[in-house]
């Protein structure tokens, strides 16, 4: 019953979109097919493909070096290369504008010795691509790490014994086994790029999300915004379907039972130095550059007498709202996960699918749908924290359902039945046995939702009660007005606070290994 309610609430935005588009007049449909819309579509698709391809191309060697070679300090690289996940795309965008812009910090460094007057334009495609790539490639890395650790070494040994060399074996045995991980990671990156709002609008690359926002902000043309949103959703669904197709039909599992052997380790020899350089370069650009640029602005701001006190309230608001969102999302995810795992059937499968709506719907679309819903049917909660939290729940539900679901799969049904036979009612069993056992999944889900809520921008911008500022909106407003120094403090704080749940997640991963 609670799961049905959650499914209905979650599918609200989709219902709104359809309603709006159906009610739209002929002109709106004309708008959809105007060349400008096609331009936006083209730009969006190019960006999505470019970011995804580059992320896979960089993550594959990175994951291989960290998992399968004798690269020095592998654990350190593992953590450092994952950390950019906590940086919001608009912060990456801000850093890129100020550091790599035509007259940015890099140009100033190069000016004296080399006489470089101007660097090439960074606004538009190159900047947007770089910014989104830098904060989203860890998704591919994450799935690849898990997959590489689970590889059965005897398959590779069998290939070697059948006369294939190391490179041939990698291409014909290892790579096909990594395909599901590449597809899953690629899916996350592609959807992230499609849904991203912060980086594209800061770097002035007009994709769907930005166009929808402009449409909404400038003309309040809800119909046109809804129609554009619908196209965006269609693209998201196409990406989801493509991923399912790429995953292929073959099943991937260990062919042997028993204790896993660690996979063979490739000796790098003199290739060690280029390998180290490669890892160092990624960390330098994705992690060290943003933090040092932000620190530079912070120092400049403080020395110019910039007030720091405003930021603390935003930080508190961010933590508060993210905590609430994490709690609410976990509470909503529990019945969905329990239903999907324990009562598998057509209806529960459908409910679980519906809960994945948040994967396909960009934050800006969900936010607009809720504005419409709140303004028309639920005026008491319009412009309140409640509606904002609801948006987060809809967006991030899949992130919480995932880990809870996999934790639940590890809890034997027999354990619950044993508790029943010892005289406890189903609800008591849930409280005393099931919940304590899925606690790791609940914590991981909550950490993930907390992390993403901290970074979330479009829904927070549109749905926040008036006067409610978070770190994300502070960074956004400071940056869009050009006060980079004012954005530095909240950006650094945001990265710092997000690192806590991130560390929790990485540590959990490490424990799962041993």
């Amino acid at each position, binding site marked *: 019953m609670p799961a049905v309610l959650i499914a209905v609430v979650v599918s609200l935005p989709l219902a709104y979109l359809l309603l709006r588009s159906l009610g739209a007049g002929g002109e709106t449909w004309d708008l959809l097919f105007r060349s400008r819309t096609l331009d936006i579509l083209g730009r969006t698709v190019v960006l999505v493909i470019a970011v995804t391809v580059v992320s896979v191309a960089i993550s594959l060697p990175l994951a291989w070096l960290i998992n399968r070679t004798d690269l020095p300090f592998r654990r350190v690289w593992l953590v450092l290369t994952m950390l950019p996940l906590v940086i919001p795309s608009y912060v990456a965008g801000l850093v890129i504008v100020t550091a790599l812009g035509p007259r940015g910090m890099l140009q100033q460094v190069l000016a004296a010795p080399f006489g470089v007057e101007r660097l090439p334009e960074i606004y538009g495609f190159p900047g947007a691509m770089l910014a989104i790539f830098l904060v989203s490639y860890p998704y591919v890395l994450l799935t690849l790490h898990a997959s590489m650790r689970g590889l059965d070494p005897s398959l590779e040994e069998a290939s070697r014994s059948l006369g294939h060399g190391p490179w041939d074996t990698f291409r014909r045995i290892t790579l096909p086994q990594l395909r599901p991980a590449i597809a899953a990671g690629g899916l996350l990156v592609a959807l992230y790029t499609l849904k991203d709002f912060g980086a594209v609008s800061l770097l002035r690359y007009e994709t769907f999300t930005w166009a929808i926002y402009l449409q909404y902000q400038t003309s309040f043309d809800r119909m046109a915004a809804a129609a554009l949103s619908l196209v965006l959703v269609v693209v998201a669904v196409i990406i989801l379907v493509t991923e399912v197709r790429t995953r292929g039909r073959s099943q991937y599992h260990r062919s042997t039972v028993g204790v896993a052997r660690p996979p063979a380790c490739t000796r790098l020899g003199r290739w060690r130095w280029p390998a180290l350089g490669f890892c160092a370069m990624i960390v330098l650009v994705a992690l060290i550059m943003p933090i040092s640029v932000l620190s530079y602005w912070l120092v400049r701001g403080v020395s110019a007498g910039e007030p720091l006190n405003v930021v603390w309230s935003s930080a508190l608001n961010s933590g508060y709202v993210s905590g609430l969102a994490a709690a609410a999302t976990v509470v909503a995810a529990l019945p969905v996960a329990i239903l999907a795992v324990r009562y598998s059937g057509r209806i529960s499968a459908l409910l679980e699918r519906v809960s994945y709506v948040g994967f396909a719907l960009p934050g800006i679309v969900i936010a607009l749908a809720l504005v419409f819903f709140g303004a028309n049917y639920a005026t008491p909660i319009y412009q309140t924290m409640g509606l904002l939290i609801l948006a987060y729940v809809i967006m991030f539900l899949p992130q919480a359902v995932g880990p809870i679901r996999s934790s639940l799969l590890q809890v*034997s049904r*027999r*354990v619950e*039945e*044993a*508790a*029943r*036979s*010892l*005289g*406890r*009612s189903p609800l008591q069993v849930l409280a*005393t*046995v099931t919940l*304590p*056992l899925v606690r790791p999944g609940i914590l991981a889900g909550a950490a993930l939702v907390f992390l993403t809520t901290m970074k979330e921008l479009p829904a927070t911008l549109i749905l926040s009660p008036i006067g409610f500022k978070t770190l994300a909106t502070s960074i956004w407003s400071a940056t869009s007005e050009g006060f980079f120094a004012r954005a530095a403090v909240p950006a650094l704080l945001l990265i710092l606070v997000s690192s806590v749940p991130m560390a929790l997640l990485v540590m959990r991963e490490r424990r799962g290994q041993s």
Partner: protein
Amino acid sequence: MTKIAVRCSGLSKRFGRAPAVEDVNLEVEEGSFLALLGPSGCGKTTLLRLIAGFETPDSGTVEVGGRKVTGPGVFVPPEKRRVGIVFQDYALFPHLDVAANIAYGLPRGSEQRERVQEMLSLVGLKEFQSRMTHELSGGEQQRVALARSLAPGPELLLLDEPFSNLDADLRARIRAEVKGILARAEATVIFVTHDQEEAMFIGDRVGVMNAGQLEQIDTPEAIFHRPATPFVAQVVGIVDFLSGKVQGRAVATEVGLLPLREDLPDGGAVKVMLRPDFIDIRPAADGVGVIVDRVFQGVYYLYSVQLPSGAMVRSLQHHNRCYPINTSVAVKMNPGHDAVYFADR
């Protein structure tokens, strides 16, 4: 008169089209052990789950301690049945220590501690009470599972293949331990297994299941010596079947006339069940059989002998009787054994 602890009447359950349990009737007296024996997929675990209340039957009733718990319009949930269950994988609560696992089914209060201590000493795990369950060996985990399900004093205890997770060399010892614990607890037990030796060792009575049906339920001796169907005969030990024809008070077979004590219609075709210890073989140039296989089992050799019709019989011989393969042998029945006859259709 002894009380009936559990009674199933006309119990049936289908999964989709396939019947899992079909028209099962059984009674277990208080304090006695019933072993349910059958190959995997014969429905014995489903029967157990029907009694525990984890499945609802399509028809039939279940009574526990004289109270109807499953039947038309009646369904008592598992937690109110007073039926304990020990699963194959023990299903211990991994987040609780040994004492907390045992205390789980007990009402809170001062008596809880006492009862936990009582159960711990019953299963001999007093020094392990604050260990976590994953720190215990398989046999110890099993004793915790037993103590946990016995603690609330159930009317009936169900054991689902409790020894299949243990190494073969441990199994015999733990089996004896468990039987001792259950006897001391004066528990009524239904025990599911696919191992005939285990069933005969534990059960006061043994029920043999095949394709959802309870083919026979009787003492271990009766099941072994007087199986009701050829299936039951096969489940409890090595058997061979020969065709025969009734001739008055005897049955004519390839290995000669065998004595017949029952009344069977003269001239009727029968199937004769023989066990390896019924059959004696001696090398003879004009013997009816030829040795085709010999398995050394230590004290005994088990010979497979082919008869002219192509049928096989097996014979158990002391290890000092070693005959090579392809030896022609005379085959006869040892005195003092009764072959079992089934009507041949």
